[in-house]
């Protein structure tokens, strides 16, 4: 293994999403943005609802919508993203996410509900990632 890349694995509750070699990974932790480069100290970091961005060994970028997950950097430098939901930009049905976002916004207009706020954030993230923002 070169010290310029690190193996990564993204696993959602429903399936194995992606694995490969990456040069960097950025995510939104519950305590703020984090960036991990090869050779990072072992870590276990809780992730917020947000995008996970990574640069693959061949220079291509990947963006994944992640809802409630943890990022694990092992002793061996391997990075594992474990998330309830992790979706690649290409797998997101933007039209459906937008529809659900609108429904949630209407429901929220009539009553405040923290669960609804969370769902709305998920849909917004989906739409953003799906549109390649």
């Amino acid at each position, binding site marked *: 293994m070169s010290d310029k890349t690190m193996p990564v694995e993204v*696993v*959602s*509750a*429903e*399936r*194995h999403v992606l694995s490969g070699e990456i040069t960097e990974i950025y995510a939104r*932790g*519950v*305590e703020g943005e*984090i960036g991990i480069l090869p050779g990072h*100290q*072992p*870590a*276990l*970091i*809780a992730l917020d609802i947000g995008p996970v961005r990574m640069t693959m060994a061949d220079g291509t970028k990947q963006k994944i919508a992640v809802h*409630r997950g*943890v990022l*694990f950097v092992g*002793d061996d430098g391997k990075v*594992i993203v*474990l998330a*309830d*939901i992790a979706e690649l930009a290409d797998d997101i049905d933007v039209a459906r996410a937008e529809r659900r976002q609108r429904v949630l916004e209407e429901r929220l207009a009539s009553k405040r509900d923290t669960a609804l706020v969370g769902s709305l954030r998920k849909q917004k993230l989906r739409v953003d990632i799906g549109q390649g923002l």
Partner: protein
Amino acid sequence: MRRPGRTDGDEEDEVAGSGQIRQLKRRIRSVQGTAKITRAMEMIAASRIMKAQGRVRAARPYAEQIHDVIKGLAVSNEVRAHPLLQLREVERVAVVVNTSDQGLAGAYNANVLKVAERTIREEEAAGRSVELYVVGRKGNGYFAYRGRRPKQFWEGVSDTPSFEDAQEIADAVMSRFIPAEVDRVWLVYTDFKSSLTQTPTRMELLPVKPEEFEGGDEISPEFMFEPSQAQLLNRLIPQYVEAKVFHGLLESAASEHANRQRAMKAATDNAKDVAENLSRIMNQARQDQITSEISEIVGGAEALND
């Protein structure tokens, strides 16, 4: 002449008229039509089994990794304090039952409901109150008919459950368990052992047993935690419970399709048998008719000769 297994026209005359033959033809066509439908359903179910099995497999790495991380954290942290591990005197029980939305799945629903019913009876016999959480229209109908309205009911989930569905169900019971509104939660589902065997199973979902998190490898001290280990555990244990519910949903979905496939295969075979029997009867009737026509002609000719 009567044949064994004859199902139609027993009350009719020995010699069949052409009206009876027409009727038989129509029945054969209708039975063959049914066979086509059941055959199609059988094949759909068969392909669904494969897909559902694939989903069970695909969900495994997540559950295992979450479990491993919790076990690692549990070595140096006290997990017993977590609200989902609280062992209390059991007074109120919640039962989550996984059934299907659609029927035509053989004894699938009956079998899983039997286990649910037994669980409810046992708990009630011990003087505990039971509240029901039901997935699938069939289970809802079953309990509603018996005057037990489920506290919550989900439909459109059982066929291809998503993790979000599992979260919703898990959250419903966890939000009852944490404030001690229920003291124990059973998960009743059908375990997909193979496409030939599916076993209705019940599992104690809550409280989570501390033993489940034993035997982990200690996490090395150079690890960085964000937020603290205790807070991470607080996040991960509910995720572990959700993964268990998800597993139950996926196993049940695979079992449902397997049962439907078997039921539809039996229906197709039966329809073929019926069609075969009916066409035998029809051929017999046609022969009888021809024989009687010939004997009438021969008899008539002989009468003229005399």
